[in-house]
Each structure stands twice: as structure tokens, then as C-alpha cells.
């Protein structure tokens, strides 16, 4: 068994959310489903020619809008990367990979789609225009860079497009210079941002018009959020979720994965950061002082009622609204094998608002019940199912990210029983 290939039975993929940069649409991905809601037109979107179909045949692991909002990309366990034109929601290209895809990003100029496979290789394809001015994707990807045999958990372009940042499950963050011709590979490493002691789960940039280069933020299994200058790789500040959030009573979940940071989302052109934590039903709201290069906590925003532990966060630019989803691709143990997903929004996200950050009731979410029905697949999601989903997600993350500590005997046994060894004899 190669590194990164977990046990398929217990593999559960988290529900994901992505918000269009100008807030014209929102996408939820759960299992192989891609559900799009047109916020400007206030209506559910049917994808491409095949109604209700996403073109994916296995769990979607990564979704992303291009920074300019023209393209959208989805990819995952079916080893396919689909690139969509946001205007028409037509799939303008499918790229086939050899391995499952763990992360995606689109360059700020909209010309390159990058995706990482589970062996640590980041691939790139270019988006081009045909004679009829229709965008299409060159179908053959080229390798751009690699983390030696590690799962790449997150990819992010710097806001100015100069750097591509990649994070892995070995706690490494690599900052590569984006070359003029990305198809020839990103060989020049600007820096490594080193300091996390566990897997890095998420990356984002905090920037404003005054600080347009921005600073990099990362979240990790070591229960910290860290602030970096990606040009030098210097660690600027650490926010320790476990020690600083003391009114933080996890939902009675025992075990080592308590304060694992699972996702973060920086408000574009602003200083606020929302942080999702493994056992918190709610989010931690941070502020980044860009000139001072520090992180500070604003508050913990809790979600009353059910065990809504966000698996993914998203926001559009200039939006006071932050979107959250909680859910998983399937539940083992319960009768249903249907994907479970819940959608919520929080207002008062931006720093220039007087509004207290609050989670909105269903009827105040844009699109209201119509949106929920489409994105969740149903209006009613049972409490026990939500709790079970949170647990399934925690276990899956644990399995995927935490390195197996084999005892000496097991290690010897694994060596003796390895297939390649047998073949070599």
C-alpha cells in the first residue's frame, strides 16, 4: 500500500462550499454532486447538458472559482478535473489524471488551472481560446512542481499572482515563483514556510488595497493558525486555538483531533479570517493586523442547536456574508448512504461593519428555502445524522492525515508481506 492510499471503506469526503468572487453564485459539493445556486437570478442552476449531473463519479475533493470569476474548477477521487465556464455552467474541459486529486487553484489571470494529486505532484493545464473565441482546456497536464511523496492539502496563488503556495500533510508549506511559462515547471522556490508541527490543512491570503501583496495564513492539525511573510518564509504570528479559545467546550469528543484547524477563509480585501475547527460548532473569528503583522481573536461565533461543525467556509469579495457547510459524502453505520450537507451563513464578517457577527436563520439566507432545498438536497436534515456526519468527518481526517505509528513488529510484518518484495524474489 502506497502512502496516501487510505482504507477506502472509511473514506469519507467533507462537504465543500465555494462562493463566486462577486457573489453571483454559490456552489456546494458533496460526494460526487455539484450543486450550484445562481444568487443573482435567485434560481438553482442545471449543470451543462446533463441535468443534475456533475460529471464526477466519485467524491469531489476540491472546488474553486477563478479569482476573476470566469471559471470554476472541480476535482476529486475520480481522478478528473472539470473546468466550467461560470456564465453558462458549461463544462469547457475535463482533464484526466493518474491519481486522485486533492486540491485545485486557478491563476489570477485565469490562464492556468493547477491541481495536486495524492502523491504530491502539482500539475498545470492552460486555458485557451479557440477560433470562435470559446475557452477550452488543453487536455494534457504537465507536472509543475512536487512535494516528495506527500498529500498536498491546499494550493493558493498570492493575490498578485507572483507565487503559488502549496501545503502538505508533512507540515511543509512551499512558496514557488510562478514563472512566465508555467507549463515548463515552477523550479524556483521562493521560500519554505516551516513551523507547523502537524499536517497543514488550509491556506489563504489576507490582503487589502494598501497591503496588496498580503500575508499568508495557514491552519494545521497542530491546532494553530499561523501568519507568514511568504516572500521570506518568516513566521510572523501564531494563533493557538487550543490555548486561546478557553470558553471552547468541544462537543464531548475525546481524542487527539480536538482543535484541528480544518478550514479558513479570509475576507477578500479585508482583514477578517474565519476559522473552522474540528470540534467547534461554529467558527473562530480572527483579525489580522497587516502593518503590525499579528493575529488576534475577535470572538467565537457559535451555532445554536445542532452540532453544526463546518467542514468548509467560503465568501465573496466585498461581502459581509460568510458561507459555511457541514456534511460528508456518506455515513457508514446509519441506514442512509446519502450524502449529508447543511448550509449556513454568517453576517457581520467584514471588519468595517457595525453588525455583530451572527449566524442567520434559514429564512434570511439569500435564496432562503429555495436555495437550501437545492444545495442541501432537502430542507430537513436530522440532528443525529448531523452529529454522525461530524464524527465521520473527524475520523476520516484522522485516517488521512495523522501518520500511522506502526509498532516495530507491525512494521516488520508489513515489510515481509509487501508485494513488491515478493515479486523481487
Amino acid at each position, binding site marked *: 500500500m502506497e502512502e496516501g492510499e487510505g482504507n477506502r471503506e472509511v473514506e469519507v469526503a467533507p462537504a465543500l462550499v465555494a462562493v463566486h468572487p462577486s457573489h453571483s453564485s454559490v456552489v456546494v459539493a458533496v460526494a460526487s454532486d455539484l450543486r450550484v445556486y445562481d444568487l443573482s437570478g435567485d434560481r438553482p442552476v442545471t449543470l451543462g447538458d446533463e441535468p443534475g449531473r456533475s460529471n464526477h463519479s466519485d467524491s469531489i475533493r476540491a472546488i474553486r472559482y477563478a479569482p476573476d470569476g470566469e471559471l470554476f474548477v472541480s476535482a476529486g477521487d475520480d481522478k478528473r478535473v472539470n473546468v466550467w465556464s461560470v456564465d453558462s455552467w458549461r463544462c469547457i474541459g475535463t482533464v484526466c489524471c493518474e491519481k486522485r486529486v486533492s486540491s485545485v487553484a486557478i491563476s489570477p489571470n485565469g490562464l492556468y488551472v493547477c491541481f495536486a494529486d495524492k502523491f504530491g505532484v502539482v500539475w498545470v493545464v492552460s486555458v485557451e481560446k479557440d477560433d470562435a473565441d470559446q475557452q477550452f482546456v488543453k487536455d494534457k497536464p504537465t507536472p509543475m512542481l512536487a512535494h516528495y511523496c506527500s498529500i498536498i492539502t491546499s494550493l493558493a496563488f498570492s493575490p498578485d499572482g507572483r507565487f503559488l503556495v502549496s501545503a502538505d500533510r508533512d507540515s511543509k508549506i512551499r512558496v514557488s515563483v510562478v514563472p512566465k511559462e508555467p507549463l*515548463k*515547471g515552477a*523550479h524556483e522556490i521562493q521560500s519554505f514556510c516551516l513551523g507547523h508541527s502537524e499536517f497543514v490543512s488550509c491556506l489563504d491570503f489576507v490582503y487589502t488595497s494598501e497591503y496588496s501583496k498580503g500575508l499568508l495564513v495557514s491552519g494545521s492539525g497542530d491546532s494553530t493558525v499561523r501568519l507568514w511573510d511568504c516572500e521570506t518564509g518568516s513566521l510572523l504570528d501564531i494563533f493557538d486555538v487550543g490555548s486561546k479559545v478557553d470558553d471552547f467546550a468541544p462537543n464531548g469528543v475525546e481524542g487527539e483531533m480536538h482543535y484541528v484547524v480544518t478550514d479558513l477563509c479570509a475576507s477578500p480585501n479585508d482583514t477578517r479570517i474565519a476559522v473552522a475547527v474540528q470540534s467547534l460548532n461554529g467558527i473562530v473569528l480572527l483579525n489580522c493586523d497587516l502593518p503590525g503583522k499579528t493575529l488576534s481573536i475577535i470572538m467565537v461565533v457559535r451555532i445554536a442547536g445542532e452540532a453544526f461543525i463546518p467542514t468548509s467556509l467560503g465568501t465573496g469579495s466585498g461581502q459581509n456574508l460568510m458561507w459555511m457547510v457541514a456534511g460528508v459524502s456518506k455515513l457508514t453505520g446509519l441506514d442512509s448512504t446519502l450524502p449529508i450537507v447543511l448550509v449556513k451563513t454568517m453576517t457581520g464578517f467584514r471588519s468595517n461593519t457595525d453588525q455583530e457577527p451572527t449566524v442567520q436563520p434559514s429564512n434570511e439566507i439569500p435564496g432562503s428555502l429555495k436555495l437550501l432545498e437545492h444545495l442541501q438536497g432537502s430542507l430537513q436534515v436530522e440532528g443525529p445524522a448531523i452529529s454522525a456526519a461530524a464524527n465521520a468527518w473527524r475520523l476520516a481526517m484522522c485516517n488521512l492525515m495523522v501518520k500511522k505509528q506502526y509498532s516495530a513488529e507491525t512494521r516488520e510484518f508489513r515489510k515481509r508481506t509487501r508485494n513488491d518484495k515478493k515479486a523481487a524474489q
Partner: protein
Amino acid sequence: MQEKVVGSTHSKTTGLPRKRFYRARAHSNPLSDSHFPVPLCPGQFDYSLHYPQLFPSSSNNGCVKKIQFADIGCGFGGLLVSLSTLFPETLMIGMEIRDKVTEYVKERISALRTTNPGQYQNISVVRTNSMKYIPNYFEKGQLTKMFFLFPDPHFKEKNHRRRVISPHLLDEYAYTLAVGGIIYTITDVEELGEWMESCLDEHPMFEAVSEEEVKADPVVNLLTSATEEGQKVARNGGKTFRAIYRRISPSSS
């Protein structure tokens, strides 16, 4: 010298550890997850543990000198021992993935330090997987020489990604080497020699060192004469294939 402090795993006459007590499996799989301590970042690498005479306490660690030469897959450490006296002012480290071999090199260095007071203070070894953790040990542009001598060949096509020289790993070596720094590779496996040369040739941040410079470089002879593998190949009258390249700035791409 005091023979009695040296155990039976060490030679009575030289105080050096005997290799046969430190034999290990010939090959390690660099892809498998191993569990040895790795510094979180270069700043956390404790120089006082490795070079105690030069760094008497860990508190003055923030100081001037840093490791400049790295021997990747150093094996039994022959090269380090020779380089130590050739460049007495330079700090060097061997990186080796096999536990027992690393232990052997440690013992070898400490025996040399004991028998030659004041010498061999500038060399040390760490057990690590160089394919994963080079950036944890060295900062950008810190190294001036990197050695990849007689690396494991990994013949099968599907195992090429286990090779210690590969297009992607060269990105990390280029990051670690100062502009002008030299990467030395040598092997007795022709196919691997061609592979290493072509990887280096195609990389935008390396250029071949000219024949004259190679001839004038005192280190070049050591690649075969000082390494255990090199000596073995020489004894058997085998051929070797060298590729020596310099780190250059990428043409503004």
C-alpha cells in the same frame, strides 16, 4: 590512546568502530514513513549537539557559522572524513537514512575526535530522509557544496521517483544551494549516470562545470578515492560516471 573506553564493536588498535557491527539492509525505501526526529525548521537544528567544540552551548546558536557542505546518502562517511581536514573551517553534515549506518558514522567521528584532539570538529551526521526534509535543515542558499555519491540506482521505471536526483528534487537542491554552489554526482551505474546528467542538464538553475574547473577542483578526486563505494568500484576496476554542476540564477523567466 585509552583503549579501555572503547567497546568490542570498535577496533582495538585504531579505536574506530568496526563496520561489520553496523551492517544494515542494503536499501531503504525512502517513501515509507519513518519516525526519527526532524527539526521543524533550520533554526531549530541544534548545532551544539553536532559540533560541541565549535558551539559550546545551544544558547549562542544564533551565531555566524552554518553548515555549508552536505553529503546526501553519506553511507559510512568516508567523504566527510577526508573533507574535514581539507576544509577545516567549513561545517559539513552527512545525511543518511539507515539507522545503523548513521550510528556507525557517529561513532567513527567521535573516535576520530578523541584520537585527534582539535580535529574533526567540523563534521557530523544526521539520520534523515533527505528526499523529504532538506528544507528543514538548511535555509535558502545556505549550502555551497552538495554531494550525491553512488546513490541507490532504483532501476525499475516505476521506482524512478525514488531516485535522489530527479527533476523535482533538483528544485529543492537549487533552493538550498547558494548561487555558484556545486552539486557533485557520481555513480558506477551507467544508466543512472545518464539520468542524473540529463536531469541536471534540463534544469534551468544548473549548468555544467567546465572540464578545466573539474580538473582543478581538489574535491573531485575524493569522489572515488574517499568514499567506501568509490573504493569498492576502484578495486573491481569498474567505470564511474560523473556529473558536476553549478547552481546559477534562473534566466529571468
